[in-house]
C-alpha cells in the first residue's frame, strides 16, 4: 500500500510518499515559506503554496519513481493550522482524489506528529511532548484517543522562542546552521533569578516569561543571560509537566515531536528526565521533527488500514482548530509499518 500525504498547515508545504513496507519513505518533498522579515502572514504563505503545490506533487512522484496510478490513497492534513494555508493542501488533495478516484483520508496534523514519533522511536504507548511553533501539548493514549494531559495556557514554546528572537533583533533567520538563534545566544549565558517559572498543575504558561525577558533586555541585562534563562525555564517547565504525566500514568516511554523536538538541548533534558523514571527515550531524526508530508501519509495509512475508508472530496473540510483529542485512533497500539 502506497500513500501520498499532503501537509500545508503552517509554513511548510510538504508532499510525502510512503509505503507500508520497507523502506517506508519513498519521497519527501518540502517547500518552506520564509518571510524576509517579521512573522508569517497566512495569506502570503497561501500565495506561495499555490505557486509550488503542483511542482511539489510532481517532484514527489519523481523521487518515488511512481506514477499517480501506483498510489493507494491520498492523505491530507485538514487541521489544525492557518486557514488560507490549509485550503491549498485541501484543494490539491481533493483534486487528486476526484481526478484519479483515490480514497481521500483526512488527517489531524497533531496525530500525524505523534504517529511519526512513535514510528521512529519504536514507542508503542509513550508519553508525548509535542512542541512546535503553535503547539505545546503533553498527551498520552487512553481509551481510544490521545488525551491531553497538559498544555500551554497561552503561547506555544516555539512561538515564545521565535517572538523573543524577533523582538530582541536576533531573527530572522530563526535557525542558523541547524540551531535556533536563542540557543546560539544562550551559549555562555548564566542563570538569572526572578524570572517566572509557571507550572500550574499540568499546564505551563509562557507569556509572563516572555514579558520578563523582553523587559530585562530593555533594562540592559546581558542578552546571553536572558536567552539562557528564558530557554532554561521554558524547556524545564515543559519537561517537568511531561515528567508529571509519566509519573501519573506510570508509562515507560517518552517521545518528543513537533518542530521544537529537533532541539538538542530539549532532547537532552527529555533523556535525563526519562532516565529518572526508568523510561525509554529515543530522539526522532531531526528532519522528521518538523512539519512534513511523510507523517501525513503514515497517519493516512494507519487510518485506512483500521477501516476508515475516507471522505468524499466535497466533505474534506478544513478545521483550523481541530484538537488532537477529538480524533479516534482505532489503530492504536499498532505502530506504522506493522
Amino acid at each position, binding site marked *: 500500500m502506497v500513500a501520498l500525504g499532503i501537509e500545508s498547515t503552517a509554513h511548510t508545504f510538504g508532499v510525502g510518499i510512503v509505503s507500508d513496507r520497507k523502506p517506508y519513505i519513498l519521497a519527501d518533498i518540502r517547500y518552506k515559506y520564509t518571510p524576509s522579515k517579521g512573522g508569517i502572514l497566512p495569506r502570503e504563505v497561501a500565495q506561495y503554496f499555490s505557486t509550488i503545490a503542483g511542482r511539489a506533487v510532481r517532484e514527489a512522484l519523481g523521487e518515488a519513481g511512481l506514477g499517480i496510478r501506483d498510489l493507494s490513497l491520498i492523505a491530507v492534513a485538514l487541521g*489544525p493550522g492557518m486557514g488560507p494555508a490549509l485550503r491549498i493542501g485541501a484543494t490539491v488533495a481533493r483534486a487528486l482524489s476526484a481526478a484519479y478516484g483515490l480514497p481521500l483520508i483526512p488527517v489531524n496534523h497533531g496525530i500525524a506528529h505523534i504517529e511519526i514519533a512513535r514510528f521512529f522511536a519504536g514507542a508503542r504507548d509513550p508519553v508525548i511532548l509535542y512542541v512546535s511553533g503553535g503547539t505545546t*501539548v503533553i498527551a498520552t493514549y487512553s481509551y481510544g484517543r490521545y488525551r491531553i494531559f497538559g498544555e*500551554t495556557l497561552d503561547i506555544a514554546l516555539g512561538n515564545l522562542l521565535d517572538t523573543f528572537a524577533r523582538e530582541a533583533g536576533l531573527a530572522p533567520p530563526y535557525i542558523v546552521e541547524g540551531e535556533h538563534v536563542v540557543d546560539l545566544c544562550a551559549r555562555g549565558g548564566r542563570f538569572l533569578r526572578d524570572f517566572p517559572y509557571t507550572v*500550574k498543575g499540568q499546564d505551563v504558561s509562557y507569556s509572563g516569561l516572555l514579558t520578563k525577558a523582553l523587559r530585562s533586555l530593555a533594562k540592559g541585562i546581558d542578552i546571553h543571560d536572558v536567552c539562557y534563562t528564558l530557554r532554561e525555564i521554558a524547556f524545564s517547565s515543559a519537561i517537568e509537566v511531561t515528567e508529571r504525566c509519566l509519573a501519573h500514568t506510570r508509562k515507560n516511554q517518552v517521545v518528543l515531536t513537533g518542530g521544537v523536538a529537533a532541539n538538542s538541548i530539549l532532547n537532552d533534558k527529555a533523556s535525563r528526565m526519562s532516565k529518572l523514571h526508568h523510561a525509554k527515550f529515543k530522539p526522532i531524526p531531526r528532519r522528521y521533527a518538523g512539519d512534513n508530508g511523510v507523517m501525513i501519509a503514515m497517519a493516512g495509512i494507519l487510518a485506512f488500514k483500521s477501516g476508515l475508508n475516507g471522505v468524499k472530496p466535497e466533505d474534506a473540510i478544513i478545521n483550523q*482548530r481541530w484538537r488532537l483529542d477529538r480524533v479516534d485512533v482505532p489503530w492504536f497500539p499498532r505502530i506504522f509499518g506493522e
Partner: protein
Amino acid sequence: MVSEDFRRIVSRITSRARILSVGAESVLLVTKLDNYKIILKFRKMKPYMDPELAKSLAVLRTIKESKIMTIINKNGIPSPRILFSLPNAGLIGMEYIEGHTLKETLEQGLVDPRTAGRVAGEIIGRVHSIGIVHGDPTTSNYIIKNNNFYLIDYGLSEFSDKLEDRAVDIHLFRRAALATHAKYADVLVESFLDGYRATLGDYADKVIERASKLELMGRYVAERRTVWSRQNYS
C-alpha cells in the same frame, strides 16, 4: 552548625529509609521513628535543570508546602500530619497514611466513582474554604485508607482565594479524570462537582463556571473563536 553537620543529620534521618515511590516531584521514603512509620518527602534537584533553578525550586517548594500542610492540619482537613521540615535539604517528614491511591482503587473497581468523586470534591471545597488551592488534584493524590479519603501532596499548592485559581483545581481534576479514567469520567466529575457544591454552596457554581472557561483557554478549541466559525469551511 556547619553544612557538613547538617548533611550528616539529614543522612542519619534518611539512611534507614526505604523508597516507597518515585514521583515527578519527589521521592517518598518510609522510615521508622520509635516504631512509628513516617514518610520522608525528599525533593531531589532535577538533573535536567540548571542547578540554580533546580535548587531554588526545591527549597521554595519545600518551604511553601510545609506552611500549607501546617494550615491544612490545623483546620482538620483529612491529610497527613506534618512532623518536620528541612527546606535546605528539600525534606519534609510527615505521617504515613498506609492506603491506596484513588486512581488504583478506581481502576480495580474497589470504589464507586460516584461516591469517590463526591468525597474528593468535598475535600477540595474545604481546602478552598481556608484560602488554599491544591494545584494538582489528580486521582493519584487522594489516598484511601479504611474507607477514609486523604488529600496528599501539597507540593504545588498556593495560598489563594482567587476565583481563577480555584477554577484551575476544578479544571485539573476534570481533565485528569478524562485522561486517566475516561470510561467513567462523566460520573466521577459530576459527583466531584456535587461534593464541591455541598461544601461551598452557591459560590461553587461561580468557580465551576470559570473552570469551564479555562477548558476553552487550551489551544485550538473551536468554541473559543466562534467568530471564525464561518472560515472553518473552505
